[in-house]
């Protein structure tokens, strides 16, 4: 049999995106304020920042996150469900070989981790990842 069924099984990964951002805690607006303070209200693009975080945290007290943005002079991380959303700012000099950083952060509950990169030309880029903090389920 030849591989001819691709049209029929349209698995749109785009259909999942909206659902992940439900139930956002009230702290989200604090993050918006902090981001606005950082960017001065400038428009924020997407696509230049790669944020790697687990879909479901194995331990909410220590969640590994990695962020990478070639051409960034700084990257700021926010956890929009934490009482204090600012997590860290990483600054990169002109001699930085790679504009990436890894750290572990504490997440109080299911929430978004947001990375804002300030680029060399002064523009801003962002990436967002929803990390679920769960009380545990039952494996198959």
């Amino acid at each position, binding site marked *: 049999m030849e591989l001819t069924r691709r049209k029929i099984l349209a698995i749109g990964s785009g259909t999942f995106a909206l659902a992940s951002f439900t139930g956002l805690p009230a702290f989200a607006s604090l993050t918006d304020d902090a981001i606005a303070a950082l960017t001065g209200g400038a428009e924020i693009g997407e696509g230049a920042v790669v944020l790697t975080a687990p879909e479901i945290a194995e331990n909410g007290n220590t969640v590994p996150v990695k962020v990478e943005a070639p051409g960034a002079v700084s990257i700021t991380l926010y956890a929009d469900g934490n009482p204090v959303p600012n997590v860290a700012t990483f600054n990169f000099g002109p001699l930085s070989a790679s504009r990436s950083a890894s750290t572990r952060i504490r997440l109080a509950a299911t929430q978004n981790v947001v990375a804002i990169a300030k680029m060399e030309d002064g523009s801003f880029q962002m990436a967002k990842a929803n990390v*679920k903090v769960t009380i*545990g389920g039952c494996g198959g």
Partner: protein
Amino acid sequence: MISRRDFLQVGMAASAIVGASGFGNWARLAAQQSLTQDQLLEFDTFGNVSLIHVTDIHGQLKPIYFREPSINIGVGGGKGVAPHVTGSDFRKLYGIADGSPSHYALSSGDFSSLAQTYGRVGGLDRVATVIKAIRADRPDAILLDGGDTWHGSYTCLKTQGQDMVNVMNALAPDAMTFHWEFTLGSDRVAELVEQLPFAALGQNIFDAEWDEPTELFPPYKMFERGGTKIAVIGQAFPYMPIANPGWMFPEYAFGIRDEHMAAMVKEVRAAGAECVVVLSHNGFDVDKKMASVVPGIDVILSGHTHDALPEPVQVGDTIIVPSGSNGKFVSRVDLDIRDGRMMGYRTKLIPIFSDVIAPDAEVAALIDEQRAPYLAEMLEVVGQTDSLLYRRGNFNGTWDDLICDALLSERDAEIALSPGVRWGPSLVPGQDITREDIFGVTSMSYGQAYRSEMTGEFLKVVLEDVADNIFNPDPYYQQGGDMVRTGGLGYRIDVSKPQGERISNMTLVKTGEAIDPAKSYVVAGWASVNEDTEGPQIWDVVESHIRKLGTVTVQDNTNVDVVGV
């Protein structure tokens, strides 16, 4: 070529003509005579490479009954498509005649009656016969074990997985990946993995401290077979420390890690692999999404969610082959690998009808050897059942209802919680219930039955949390189990809603009163992922309850109202 839509319509027409046919005890002999081992093994050898896939055996060395689910709701991209199609809809989808061997093996409906006709399924001695037959056709076939092998039976618990290792070694797999194995504890897992004569793979098994790949579990293995190079990449169950007790294996971190998977695919392609196979314990919907975001995978051999489909599901250029559970099926996947790519495939999901496939004598003897020291205690009859006892399904199965009843009465609780796992063989009406049968649905390394108080509010949080692990429309947030089973507690669930809004109408069944968020209720449950959980082992609780009943009759459970499907 026939399109999918045409295929569906042909299927529906065929089954409408055949209609329902009654089968009784008398039909069993006829069924066995009409179904032959040669028929089950018949396969027109194709291409240049063969894969053999077994997965989620859950310690089942001997033939068993296993009823497939009648409720398996899909959400998001999984809505209404395989494997989220059950019973007669499943048979229509695949053109399977009612009452046929495929009906019995693959779908729910008339299970008790068909079980009389077609008998037990599985048994690793029968699986051995099938593997040997495929190897006779294709001596260099690659045998891959998708994990959940060293868990799920009396002997497996008592020997800490050694019985399964001994028998699987006789089948000579080429590689394996993991899930419940880790609940043996990381020391024991390391001890067993170090003695395996085959590869223990997991590209997503990382060192928890440094978040780096481990030496014990390499990401992939390359095979030179059929004049080509095949890479097999392992993908362990991503949510091990969340769905199972992380304190039993604190050295390891998991996760889906699809970026790392993509890097591994690139690495093996660069090393000359013409075919990339992922031996996965993700669960079917996670595999579908992974196939859509990680380029370059040819075949995903899919485990964890216990789905069995008569043909692969294709996502892009990737085929996904799910091979059932509990030793009930073996998948054969023949591939035509040429010019650096997969040119075509032919697959067969072989149901292991234990009365039709002859046991392999050598493996049968090895199985008996593992069981001999425990045989008397295992085969002790505890009671009988008048009802079909099964587990599979998104909500309560009859085995779970029985376990919840045992918790309510033996632990004097108002509400019982039982984990929504998908393993555990079925028993048909009229069967004895042996101690082995009870262990088949309860055995684990953290089986303590706790008794504590929970507020109504907390109970709702628990139900909402577990529901989101199943019904989150993004498969990457699904953990692959079923809904936590409840005893003494009724509720309504709207599967279309987001977390926090799915559960309503929580009711204490005994009194019919609404659950009060502020009030505390006495709750008994088992399989807590928390360390230092205290209480008797669940199998002792269930045995004591069944002994008091003598003969078990389980009524239909109407306490869960499912809407939004």
